[in-house]
Structures are given as C-alpha cells and as structure tokens.
C-alpha cells in the first residue's frame, strides 16, 4: 500500500463514518427561539415565565424523548423587554432552521414582529396578553393571543364581580372603580369597561395612576370618597403592592379589590406584606405545585438537575405555571400538526395549522396532568384566542387559593368589537380577509 492510497483509504473511511453519523446528528428537531428577559424591570415575570416554558420543554425531551421523537431545542436571546432588542433577537434567531413559534411575552415586541412573522410564516404566541384584535384569525393569520385577550379579561372580571353579588342582574346600580396604570397597556380596557357598565347598568369610574405608581395617596382618597363596591386593580410592577398598602391606609377593604392578569403574581403581593391578605386576582392558570404536570417537572427535570429556576421556591408560582401552560399549548400544537403532516420537523406554517386546530377539552387537559391548572382551549382558524376560561385566586398571606369556579368571559358580546377593529386594521394595511379555505392551504417550506 502506498502512502497515497493509505491516505485515500483513511479519507474514505472517515467520509463513511461521517455520512453514517450525520443523520443521527441531524435527527428531527423543532426549535423554539426564546426572546427572554432575565434582567431589567420585568425580570421577575421573565424568569418565571421562560423558566416554566423551558422546564416543560425539558420534561417532554427527558420523559418522552421529544414530541413523537422530534426533539425540542431552544436558545435564549435577552431582550430586557425592549422593542429594539427584541427585533435584533428576532433577526438573529430566525436564521436557525425549524422554528416552531415565537413567544416574546411583550406587547411592544409582538407589535414590531407582526409584519415580519407574517412574511416569514411562523406563528407568534402572545399568551394572556397581546393585541386584542389579533384574536381575529381572518386578519392576523399568524398571531395567537392564546387563552385570554385584554377584552375577555375585562369581561371575566365583571362576571366574577357579578357572581359575588349574586348574579349579573345584581350589578345594576353598583359602582366599580378601575385603577389603571398610566400606560398604553393600562388604558387598553377603558372602552370595554364603559361598554359593560352601560350594558349591565353599573357605574364605572376609571382612575389613572401615573407610571411607575409608587405614590397613590390622592387616587385612594378619591376612591374613599366614591365608596365603590369593588375596585379593579389594573396595575403593573411596583404599582400593585403600593395600591394594596394605600388601600389599607385609607381604610378600603382589600377583599373588595380585584386584580387583573398582570397584578396577580406573588411578586405583586409579597412586598405589600399583610396589606395583601384577602386580595383577589384573575388568572388563567392556577398557581401551586400540586398539579401532576408540575410534580413531574419537579421529579424529572429538577430531579435531574436540569431545572431552570434558580429559586426552587418559585416552582408553581403564577408566572412559572403560566410558562408551563404556555409550554403545553405550544407542544400540543406541534403534536396536532404532526398528526397531519408527519412526525418530523415542521415548518412554521404547519405549526400555524396546528395552533388553528388546537383543541384541548377538560378530559385532554387532565390527561396532560394539568387538571385544574387551566381549564381548556378551543382555537380555530378565525378565533385565535381559543375561549380560555378564567378563575380567581385569593392571597392568604402565604399563597394563592382558588376561590371561584372557572368563569367564561362573554365572548359573543366582544366578538363584534374585535372584528370591527381587525377589519379596520385590514383596511388600513390593505390586507385581504382570509377564508377557511385559505387557512387550510399550508406552506411546506
């Protein structure tokens, strides 16, 4: 054997090894680009949510070996909740193949991404928040405000107050004060409260707290003079504990304050100390770590030392559980799409089809180990919210306790408003309304 042929043989065998090994290394993978935020003012929400999301993806990988053998992968890009960082992350992460869906958990970033993801045909998930009119799948094919949009949240809160008063007809003549954060987010529900007040005959007074809200004496004195039956706290960050403390100071009963979905976390009540005892807040996912899926995460993921939360006491907290629920919704959408398109890496548009057929009834939710963690979801091609139910939990000084049944927002009432807004958007942007047939046409590359 000459020297040259030795090299040739070595090269050949090396090539063969590589060619055998390659398919294994390139097994089907589905990629989640995570535009997370672990620093900055929203870090408490970011670490909890993305921690829960990653924990669930890890659970699927460790326990099931992925979704039907397709391994889930992800990487994180820090946004600090800033729009331009989110855009940079989008451009950076989209170059990686096999992206399933985007989950920025930020309204601002989501807005900046709508045009981009629509061109790139990858779904954008804004669980529990986002642009209300993106519920209309005719106009926003790739945007999914899953479980709860701001209007449904408002309707859910009003329905809860009605149930406390003994029925929707008992709302007549009642008085509700909405204390809202002085930001676009805070102001978003003003017209819906006005509408519901008119419809059900209660009076509503909406009071603004300028950002950041660390001084609310005058607002609460106004509330004391108004003597409302309920106060809805539509707050964010430091505004929430300050509101609770000030309420105690002016003598307003805390158990008549109802928090919205961004005023419902442990981080909102613990700083208020005893003042928060008895405070109730809306949620789409109950907190606590007793649910089977959370238990499995503790056992399988944290047991293997792969848990994402540094502080294990936060397992089962509101944001962590929201991340887990978001993980369930994303993974199940992939599963739905895989049943139609095959057990392989899916394109973004195929995952979009999966989300549009994501139907988890209470029995299915129980099979996933999430009974009582969240109720159900029923997404369709034109309803991208999916009729999420809400529940209410009360803070007892140590933990949240669920104090209501699952409550349905009044979707039928809200739908025409949403459609009107979405149609106006479509007209402004020159978008043609999608039909059911359009939704079934799926791009496979």
């Amino acid at each position, binding site marked *: 054997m000459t020297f040259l042929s030795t090299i040739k043989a070595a090269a050949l065998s090396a090539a063969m090894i590589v060619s055998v090994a390659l398919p294994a290394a390139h097994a089907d993978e589905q990629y989640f680009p995570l535009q997370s935020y*672990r620093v900055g003012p929203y870090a408490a929400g970011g670490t909890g949510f993305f921690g829960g999301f990653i924990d669930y993806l890890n659970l699927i990988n460790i326990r099931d070996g992925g979704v039907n053998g397709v391994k889930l992968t992800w990487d994180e890009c*820090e946004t600090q909740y800033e*729009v331009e960082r989110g855009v*940079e992350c989008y451009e950076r992460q989209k170059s990686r193949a096999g992206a399933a869906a985007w989950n920025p958990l930020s*309204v601002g970033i989501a807005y900046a991404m709508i*045009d981009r993801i629509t061109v790139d045909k990858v779904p954008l998930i804004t669980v529990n928040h986002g*642009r209300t009119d993106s519920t209309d799948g005719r106009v926003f094919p790739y945007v999914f405000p899953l479980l709860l949009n701001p209007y449904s949240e408002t309707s859910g809160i009003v329905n809860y107050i009605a149930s406390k008063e003994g029925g929707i007809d008992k709302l007549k003549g009642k008085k509700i004060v909405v204390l809202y954060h002085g930001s*676009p987010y805070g102001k978003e529900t003003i017209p819906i409260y006005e509408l519901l007040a008119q419809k059900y005959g209660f009076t509503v007074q909406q009071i603004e707290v300028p950002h950041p809200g660390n001084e609310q004496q005058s607002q609460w004195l106004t509330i004391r003079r108004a003597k409302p039956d309920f106060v809805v706290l539509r707050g964010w960050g430091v505004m929430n504990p300050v509101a609770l403390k000030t309420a105690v100071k002016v003598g307003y009963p805390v158990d008549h304050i109802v928090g919205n979905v961004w005023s419902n976390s442990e981080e909102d009540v613990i700083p208020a100390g005893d003042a928060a005892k008895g405070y109730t807040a809306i949620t789409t996912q109950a907190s606590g770590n007793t649910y089977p899926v959370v238990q499995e995460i503790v056992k399988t993921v944290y047991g293997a030392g792969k848990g994402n939360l540094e502080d294990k006491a936060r397992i089962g907290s509101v944001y962590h559980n929201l991340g887990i629920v978001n993980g369930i919704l994303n993974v199940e959408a992939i599963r739905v799409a895989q049943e139609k398109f095959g057990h392989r890496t899916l394109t973004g548009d195929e995952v979009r089809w999966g989300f549009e057929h994501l139907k988890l009834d209470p029995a299915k939710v129980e099979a996933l180990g999430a009974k009582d963690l969240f109720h159900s979801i029923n997404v369709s091609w034109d309803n991208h919210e999916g009729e999420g139910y809400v529940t209410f939990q009360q803070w007892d000084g140590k933990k949240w306790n669920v104090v209501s049944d699952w409550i349905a927002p009044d979707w039928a009432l809200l739908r025409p408003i949403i459609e009107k807004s979405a149609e106006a958007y479509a007209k402004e*942007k020159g978008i043609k309304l999608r039909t059911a047939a359009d939704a079934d046409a799926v791009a496979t590359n």
Partner: protein
Amino acid sequence: MAAIPAEFSSAPVLPKWVAPVLLLAFAYGVVPLVGSSYLFEAILLPFLALGLAGVGLNILTGYAGQVSLGSAAFMAAGAFAAYNFNLRIDGLPLIGSIVLAGLVAAAIGIVFGLPSLRLRGFYLAVSTLAAQFFVQWALTKFSWFSNNSASGVIDAPRLSIGGLALDGAVGRYLFALTIVAVLTFLAHRLVSSQTGRNFIAIRDNETAARIIGIPVLKTKLLAFAISSFIIGVAGVIWAFAYLRTVEPDGFDLDRSFQILFIIIIGGLASIRGAFFGAALIVVFPLALSRLGGFLLGDVFDSGVLDMSQRIVLGALIILFLILEPDGLVALWDRIRRRLLFAWQST
C-alpha cells in the same frame, strides 16, 4: 521656487468630497447586493437612525454648545407627527409627511429651546428634561395621537415613494440611507456656513459673540429648530423603517442619553463623529453579546451574560473616554495620519 523635498510634501491629498462619495457608492452599490437581512434589520437601520439623531444633537450640543436631554422627545414628536400626517391627510406623499413631521419637531424644539435664552449648561440640560417628560406624557395621555388605538402602539404605514414599494429590508435601508445622506450633507454645509460659525461663536463665548453682533437669541433658537428637525426625521426612520411600530415607551430618557453618549463618544462638533458613535453604540453591544453567548452561553443563563456585558461595556466606555477624550473621530484621524506617514516614508 525650489522643489519641496519628498519627505516634507503632504500626502497626495484627495479632495474632501472623495471619501464620502466612495462611501455612498459602496452603501448604495455594494451593500444591498451582499447584505443579509440581519445586517439591514439589526445593524444598519438602527445605525442610520441613531447616527442621524446624533448629527442633529451635535449641531445643538457640539456646535452651538447647548446641552439637551430631550432628543428622544423630538424623535417621538417626529415619529408620531409623521404617522398622523400620513393618516389624516389623504394623498400626502410620504416625503411630505416626513418634512412636515420634521417641522413639527422643530416647532417643539423652539418652544423647549426658549429656556436656553436664560439658562446655560447643566441648568439648560435639566430644563430640556421637561421636553422629554412632557412629550412622552402627552403622547400616552391623548389617544388621538395614536389614532385611538386600544393599546397605544401603532403600526407604521407602508413605505412607498412614487409607487415604488420599499417594505422589504433592502428597500427600507435605501429609504433610510437616502434621507440620512441628504440631511447629513445639508448639516455639513450648514456648519461651514456663516450660521454654523455663529453657532460656534456662541458656544465658545456668548458675550463675545453678542459684542461682535451675532444675534444670540435668534441663533440659539435656530440651532434648536434645525437640531430638532433632524432628530425628528431620525425618529421617523427609527419608527417607520427600523422598528415598523411606534410607541411612546420606545422614546424614553434612556434613548436621549444614548444619543448624548453617541456624540460624546463619537466626538463633539463633528458630523462624522455622530456616525462613529452610533456605530459603536449599535454594533459593540451586539458583538459583545454574540461573543458572550458563543463563549459562555452554555455555562450562564442569558440574564447573567447580559449583566456582565453591561459591566464590560461601561468599563470600556470609561476607559475610552479617559484615553481619548476627543472621541472616536480624533482617534480615527490619528490613525489615518500615522498610516499616511508610514505610507509616505516607504
């Protein structure tokens, strides 16, 4: 006249316009062909917008010597004004709304520039903070500005000039590049004109300027107006071409500081400096984050990485300002002189 010995002759000096023209030819001719969407969307568009804002602020702070912390407010005014002109006046071409938006920003600049007639230095800087807070507050408070959009965040309109759609990454880049090139050229002409010299005279000694007959009041307000016009247009580029969305939160005090840092790091009283500074502010954090993610991404989570990048970035800026207080532009000139010298002596 005796021939000058070779070692003393200056380098074959090209006319001053050659370098910018070559740069523009490269930016128009080569970059669109080879650039990736990441390059346009994440690097060049923010670079152009912030660079132009830096040019605007440099006219006010670098040349006319009036410190301002309200730049982001003027950007916001420009962005929201362009959005509203575009929305509410049918048939107004895009360029028309941009020019009108610049004028609105200029008008607001004049109003908030009035205190400069009585206040100087830090006191003026603090009074321009009023612009920062007032504009942001007004845009959030009155939903008319965002066309009563429920969330207060609005979508940028489609970009097209004379029927030519510019919605793609390259189109938006060319759109931004053209506006930035034109305004930068005008700014360059301005600072070497009589008005520009008046600015410098006021900066260097206001009393002396008054004595030699420069109308101080008028000149200061003119500086505020021109600067705000340019910053307002930069705001339009930021919102329409770069982010494609307009929200008041994006124009907060941090952005004002960012623009101030751009001109300090790039070099005060220098048009080029604004672009050097913007390049550093835009590219450097990205490079650091890429490097950090590449080297340590598996060890630490993204939060820890981001925190350490901030520390590194801050330390480097301090170090840089100590070693080169005149900014990147001075550093660049020195390097160029050295290179020319080395080239000559061979």
